[in-house]
């Protein structure tokens, strides 16, 4: 694809460098089983960044990730065989969760576009609303899933790899098609680069913005279903901590927060860097109280190595 150029390779270089450093400290790191574990731990974040990348490419931001994932995890858990409701939809719960995510995304997008409120605030507010609904709907208790078949979504394996990895791979494929081969994808770049010009060239800016938030919601919904399958339950706190990981991964991958520059493939590499960092921290035996500091330091190093500074006349 045309988007794979040298710039996209810099984060990959950082990724391998990081792997090398960790492997020096902990040879186990390079085992096949650990590679699978890392891919598996990356599955949900990868699905999340697929949506987030489009939003960020457009120059906006989506802070409702945790809210949507939690609410959709609750929706999923309530629709499969569980200890709270009488439903038993099995894997058919997944499309419902994805749709629910898309619906919330539509609310995000419509509020953002038609009330002309910055996406930062809309998604922050809607995120609170989603978490509130997830809490209120269950009164603070989790819904526990007893449907083995449904949990195969992440627990089962196909061709030797956990299914979660396949779901993530499929998401990347779909996102890549959208980015490279559809009008939506092209319009996202156009809007992110220069919205006024894009509008004058006939790009349906409003519709595109709403659709991108819907898209982000759909991916978040899928991630919610996966989270429910992975942990065997749905509750309001299931996604806590996902937001900053997602955005960090997108930025570490080289997508600019100002919009227009980047790609979903970059974000995949970004996720791998962030996940390997967390994994490596434990593998290298970094003392817990300095972990956040070391992680912060390494992210600075990673981004400064991966960023193409010539592209950045202005750093915000």
């Amino acid at each position, binding site marked *: 694809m045309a988007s794979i150029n040298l710039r996209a390779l810099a984060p990959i270089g950082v990724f391998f460098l990081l792997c090398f450093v960790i492997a020096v400290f902990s040879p186990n790191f390079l085992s096949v089983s650990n590679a699978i574990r890392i891919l598996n731990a990356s599955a949900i974040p990868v699905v999340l960044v697929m949506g987030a990348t489009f939003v960020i490419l457009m120059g906006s931001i989506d802070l409702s990730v945790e809210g949507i994932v939690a609410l959709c995890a609750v929706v999923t858990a309530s629709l499969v065989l569980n200890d709270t409701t009488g439903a038993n939809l099995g894997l058919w719960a997944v499309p419902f969760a994805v749709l629910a995510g898309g619906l919330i995304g539509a609310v995000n997008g419509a509020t953002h576009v038609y009330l002309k409120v910055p996406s930062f605030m809309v998604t922050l507010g809607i995120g609170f609303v989603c978490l509130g609904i997830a809490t*209120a709907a269950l009164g603070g208790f989790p819904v526990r899933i007893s449907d083995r078949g449904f949990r195969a979504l992440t627990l089962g394996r196909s061709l030797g790899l956990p299914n979660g990895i396949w779901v993530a791979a499929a998401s990347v494929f779909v996102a890549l098609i959208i980015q490279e081969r559809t009008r939506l994808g092209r319009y996202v770049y156009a809007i992110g680069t220069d919205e006024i010009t894009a509008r004058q060239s006939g790009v349906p800016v409003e519709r595109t913005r709403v659709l991108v938030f819907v898209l982000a919601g759909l991916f978040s919904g899928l991630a919610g279903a996966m989270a429910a399958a992975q942990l065997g339950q749905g509750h309001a706190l299931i996604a806590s901590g996902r937001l900053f990981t997602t955005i960090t991964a997108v930025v570490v991958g080289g997508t600019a927060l100002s919009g227009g520059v980047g790609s979903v493939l970059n974000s995949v590499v970004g996720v791998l860097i962030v996940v390997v960092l967390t994994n490596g921290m434990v593998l290298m035996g970094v003392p817990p109280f300095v972990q956040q500091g070391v992680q912060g330091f390494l992210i600075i190093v990673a981004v400064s190595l991966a960023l193409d500074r010539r592209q950045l006349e202005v750093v915000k």
Partner: protein
Amino acid sequence: MTEKQKELLRNLVPIFTLLILVFGIAAYEPGFLRPANLITVTADTMTLFLMASGATLVIMLGSIDLSIQAIASMTSCIVAAMLPIFGGTALLFALAAGATAGVLSGLVVNYLRIPSFVATLAIGGIMTSVAFWASDERSIYISDADKSAWLNWATGTTGGMDNEVLVGLAVLAGLSAILSLTRFGRLVRAVGSQERAVVASGINVNRVKFLAFVISGFMAGLAGLVMAARLGSGSPTLASEFLLPAIACIIVGGTAITGGVGSIWKTFVGALIIAVVRIGMTFVGVTVFAQQIVFGLVLVLAVAMTIDRTKVAVVK
């Protein structure tokens, strides 16, 4: 209405929003309007305002500071740990530590050219580690003797007014003066609206950004001190869950997240709006399950009212 009057009216919208909220709550629960209660609510808001005050400058640059929460927690630990040993000097140490964190953010953004979103997130991680180290991984109490000797400026009362409010007003006046009367303040606005032109005019933009981050770090440090004084302790998680509300109150006040437009008093009003909504819900008796939902919705609506769309061409 002339342009000037319209402009004035647009500027006053955040205040109208605040008044509508206050009287809306008072209509339900008149006790809210008791002077003592209003002073308490204002005093409770001040830590949030202090954290947001410095970050307002950074956001006006078009950047963002995500390290303020970690900085405030860190200074609370430093002051709590050092007060028994060094007395009042501990306050200076803590403030210096806050400013130093800002220095680091400034250096990383300027010289490594890393977007502030990631840079400050990472610096925040490092500050959390410093907090863990300074506090030996636990909460540290501040003895009543130390408190009354060194922290009375933050928690006592002067002429019937809580000192927090006075500190907040002093910061409001000081930073407003910096923003509207000094060359630095003007450059902050300039960089936020058209950085490339400012650079081409021979302004050392790095210096402006650097100073903004230092002020933000310093104010977050001050917020940490006031928090420590109010809660009588320092802890690495003392300021947890303050980050997003702090940024929310900057934007609710009407400062544009894209930079260029904003002021400190708007942040002050924004902080009061956030506090009034939160505390107001307790007053009106909104059930705790619905509070998050109401909070999220009011947040979006408040911003929809307060942001001045005439000054930003594109809402991102």
